């Protein structure tokens, strides 16, 4: 393959989205899983409207962190070893493969966030405020979580424990994203500046992206 870095990445994105359209893992499995989780919580903690409005935003973001990462897991385990070998033999730059997979994971996560978000707003009566910054937060979280999930998926790489191991590895590392997202919502509600939280989340994105790109080739060569 002699095409450039970004062309290769775009080809990977195209392949992943096509795969999703055919198999529909995210649409039919991950999103419903997140939605039913939101449904189960009030069954356990109580349906008092005031309580739900309080915990709603936090529950939403926890569901995004824990369940959204499954978007990356499904894709990582989709690529069998022979498929990976084929990509390598074709000359696919592992770094552009990483960027491509992270990008498609971001897009799928955005869809996840929006659909599950609608469910959360409905069930927990969450008020939507500060829409521009909210959109920024949704996008940054999607990128950060997709990067974490894709990189972790590459590290674990189709071992038998992959399905539960990736979420376990991502969960503690997703804390800055979780706190950034929830504190941003709180900040917008109270009228505070949320710039520091946004910058923190951007820092997460940058660091994981750099590590992911730099380690793509070493990981492939194992």
């Amino acid at each position: 393959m002699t095409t450039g870095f970004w062309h290769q990445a775009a080809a990977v994105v195209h392949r992943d989205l096509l795969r999703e359209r055919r198999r529909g893992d995210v649409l039919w499995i991950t999103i419903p899983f997140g939605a039913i989780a939101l449904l189960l919580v009030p069954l356990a903690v109580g349906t008092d409207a005031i309580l739900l409005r309080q915990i709603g935003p936090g529950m939403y973001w926890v569901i995004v962190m824990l369940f959204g990462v499954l978007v990356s897991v499904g894709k990582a385990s989709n690529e069998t070893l022979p498929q990976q070998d084929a990509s390598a033999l074709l000359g696919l730059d592992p770094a552009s493969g990483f960027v491509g997979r992270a990008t498609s994971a971001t897009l799928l996560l955005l869809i996840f966030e929006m659909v599950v978000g609608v469910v959360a707003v409905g069930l927990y009566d969450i008020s939507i405020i500060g829409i521009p910054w909210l959109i920024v937060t949704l996008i940054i979280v999607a990128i950060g979580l997709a990067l974490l999930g894709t990189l972790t998926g590459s590290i674990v790489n189709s071992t038998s424990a992959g399905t539960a191991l990736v979420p376990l590895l991502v969960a503690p590392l997703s804390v800055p994203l979780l706190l950034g997202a929830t504190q941003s919502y709180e900040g917008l509600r109270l009228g505070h500046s949320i710039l520091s939280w946004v910058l923190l989340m951007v820092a997460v994105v940058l660091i994981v992206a750099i590590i992911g790109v730099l380690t793509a080739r070493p990981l492939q060569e194992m």
Partner: protein
Amino acid sequence: MQAQTRNRQWPWVAIVLSLAVAFTLSMVSPADSVQGDLVRIMYVHVPAAWLAYLAFFVTFVGSVGYLITKDLRWDRIAAASAEIGVYFTGLAIALGMIWAKPTWGVWWTWDARLTLTAIMFFVYLGYLALRRTTDDPVVRAGRSSVLGVLGALQIPLVHFSVVWWRTLHQPPSLVRPDGPAIQDPLMLTALIVGVLAFTVVYGSLMVKRIELIKLDDRKVAIEQSIERPVAGEAVTVPDLGASS
């Protein structure tokens, strides 16, 4: 042979001696004016927490070392430090809870340091879980080292996020959850000696844990090199009774 055995046991001796000194100082130092005798728990909690962070840092260094040199010795250092680190992180959390219950009436205070230590515990645990999924030492080392670097570089961001979160939600009039600063010289000595003793314990455990890793690797190598009959040779072609 005897000298070899004696030399191999020095780490255990070092552990016992250093802990004996630290323990004596912890018991002999005066009680705190505010916390009373509960402050003695700090003389093991703080060293354990210090070691948790040190071990984490060493795992990071080992991971970077392996990624750069591809020498498995770096990976052994990273892995040994991670296992010892999980232990000390768990211990630090347990001791923090044992201190918190009589002091604050609850087992968990959600203060920044305790929460951060708990998150670190799970990062370590994930690292060890990842290592268990692969037998091949080279593949295992490669994957672990990338995770080690990823985890270590994210920890400062986790730290900031948790600290900011707590400063937003804790009223400033609340006394620092980990107690007032220790100022009495004998108490300070007990604390510092505790930290030094635990560092000796860490170093000794590292020596022994790495020794165990090398022994395990040698055992695996021996098992793989032994000539064994191929399993298929135990099965013969079935006789179908057909006339040839």
